[in-house]
């Protein structure tokens, strides 16, 4: 009497869509990062669910690597954010248009 795979996949999709909505509506880079974490978690959930379904431990291995990459991404991203804040005093992504041609 366990929960079917379909439910995990649908839940993963809902969380991923929430992450997309966050990335597209938020103007604060930290909140954009958080929405990216939301999406990464949704993908991790589906990886583990599919791995369990296929009887393959590879899904869990991939999840470990996704976590490591997420940690690296956050540390570098927040470092960039602090560097921007030091020079611009503002981290609104609508204001940060220095790369515009």
């Amino acid at each position: 009497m366990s929960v079917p795979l379909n439910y995990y996949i649908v839940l993963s999709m809902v969380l991923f869509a929430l992450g997309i909505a966050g990335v597209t509506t938020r103007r604060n880079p930290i909140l954009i990062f958080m929405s990216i974490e939301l999406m990464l978690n949704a993908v991790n959930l589906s990886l583990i669910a599919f791995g369990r379904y296929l009887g393959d431990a590879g899904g869990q291995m991939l999840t470990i690597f996704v976590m490591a990459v997420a940690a690296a991404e956050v540390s570098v991203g927040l470092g960039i954010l602090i560097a921007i804040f030091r020079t611009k005093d503002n981290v609104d992504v609508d204001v940060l248009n220095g790369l515009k041609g």
Partner: protein
Amino acid sequence: MTLQAILSGQGLMFLFFAAAAIASGLLVVILQNPLRAALSLVINLFSVAGLYLSLNAYFLATVQVIVYAGAIMVLFLFVIMLLNMGQANMHTSYRGVRTVAAFASAVGLGGLMSAVAIKGQPAVMLPAETMVNGSTAGSVEGVGKVLYNPSLPWLFAFEWTSFLLLVAVIGAVVLAGKRQQSSEGKA
């Protein structure tokens, strides 16, 4: 899923954590205060850890709590407080952009859903726990047996992950560290 299955222990666990994950994920997207959004994300990460547990991924559930809810979220909260974003600078984008974004993500969700739900796929039941050399795949022992097995591809990726983390540490120190006096003008 029949009513009997929903009311079983695992069904209730799934429903509880799924509802908590969706609710807190929604709060991450709509809350105005970055600190509150960060705390909602902590709840979301805990709920996803609970779902990992329901999928018998015990080690990853622990790692999720320690690494994500512990280390990464502390980093987020640290930067939010360092940049003093608790109150100001949190307006979301203009109404039109927000409508378009909500529409786009809804269309994306609908497209994904149609692949699984609308086609009337039957419920795919999960098999019994995966075993690796006599130990559960989700336990520390099982994860170690797969991750450190030289005949599988994961060991090579694991070694390079350590290099990636080293690069990230150096990059974070270089980016966020104090500039030297001599290069202050150029930077």
